């Protein structure tokens, strides 16, 4: 073999996001469930979340977010040769979301696959995009995290119904002379597979909150530090930390142990809810839009969730 077209590195070129238009507040949920705004804010940190309507399918949201990222990148649809959608809430097993989304965005015949690593999905997908570009298997990759979690919720179960929400975030990733995406540190804890699950097509999302909280606040800060080490970056050099927006208390617990004292910590969950694979690109895209982070800075992204699975890497902010 004589392999051409490899790249020394890959980096995020642009971001985009989409949030459904319907906002649901804690007070509204308190009307139909035994809960309160005060309880939700203190235990989970959410103030309001977005719920997709019947006319906002998972693919719709992915197309919107992907389209915005593509437009922001300055690339043409014809420049994209791989589309990856990270999701765990597809309504039907086949066809995958990526092929449909690619077609709707006018991207012709790219590689197309979905990744199901639940809330760690975006980081898994990003790592795969990075590896593909470096290996010469792709040139420009559209990576999308999209979820329509609300269609899987038991609206009588206040332990899940107040947490999960809908949305999509996307990144265009392209080749770079120096690495703009660090090596991923990924793993799983299949012994705790029952902690977060949708048992079957007729059932709802179930979560053992206490188990997940204990795992997330203990097992992940070492992963975060490892991801920094693998990138040759000290946590004190990070200008942003974007963990999966699972629960504000988890976010704060991990951030406290990370030692990234100059980093802005993403708290997008307050206004977006927990959107699983969408949460990281959604949070980062919104933070960039609001000027909370600046291009060129280093950010640590860390996904974790059902599986249980996790993945994190350092990235250069586009």
């Amino acid at each position: 073999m004589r392999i051409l077209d490899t790249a020394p590195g890959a980096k995020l070129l642009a971001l985009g996001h989409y949030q459904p238009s319907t906002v649901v507040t804690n007070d509204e949920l308190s009307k139909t469930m035994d809960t309160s705004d005060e309880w939700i804010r203190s235990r989970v940190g959410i103030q309001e979340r977005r719920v997709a309507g019947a006319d906002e399918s998972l693919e719709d949201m992915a197309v919107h977010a992907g389209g915005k990222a593509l437009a922001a990148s300055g690339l043409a649809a014809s420049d994209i040769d791989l589309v990856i959608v990270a999701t765990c809430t597809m309504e039907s097993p086949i066809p995958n979301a990526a092929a449909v989304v690619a077609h709707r965005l006018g991207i012709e015949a790219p590689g197309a696959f979905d990744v199901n690593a639940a809330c760690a999905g975006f980081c898994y997908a990003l790592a795969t995009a990075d590896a593909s570009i470096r290996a010469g298997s792709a040139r420009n990759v559209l990576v999308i995290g999209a979820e329509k979690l609300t269609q899987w919720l038991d609206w009588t179960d206040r332990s899940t119904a107040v947490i999960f929400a809908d949305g999509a975030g996307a990144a265009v990733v392209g080749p770079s002379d120096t690495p703009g995406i660090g090596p991923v540190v990924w793993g799983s804890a299949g012994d705790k597979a029952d902690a977060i699950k949708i048992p079957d097509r007729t059932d709802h999302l179930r979560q053992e909150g206490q188990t997940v909280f204990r795992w997330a606040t203990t097992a992940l800060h070492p992963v975060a530090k490892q991801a920094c080490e693998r990138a040759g970056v000290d946590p004190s050099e990070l200008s942003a930390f974007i963990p999966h927006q699972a629960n504000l208390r988890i976010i704060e617990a991990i951030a406290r142990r990370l030692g990234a004292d100059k980093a802005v910590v993403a708290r997008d969950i307050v206004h977006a809810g927990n959107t699983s694979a969408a949460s990281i690109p959604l949070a980062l895209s919104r933070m960039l839009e609001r000027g909370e982070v600046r291009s060129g800075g280093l950010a640590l992204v860390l996904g974790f969730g059902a599986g249980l699975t996790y993945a994190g890497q350092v990235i250069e902010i586009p």
Partner: protein
Amino acid sequence: MAASEQDILEGLGKIINEITGIPASDVTPEKSFVDDLDIDSLSMVEIAVAAQDEFGVEIPDDQLKNLKTVKDVLNFIQN
């Protein structure tokens, strides 16, 4: 050598301060976590994990609901 109850109380006070911001001096044996210190079950999980690291005693999730006062935790760690 087993730590004295006073040592454990001081260690616990530091842990609770780090996790919740409550002054360590407020952490006295008769205080109830929920009613007196306003510490909820999520913070209890964090406290249990930190106490495990500090004192080497495992406090599983299903035990936490039985630990209502600071004294309950002191007893658990000592036994």
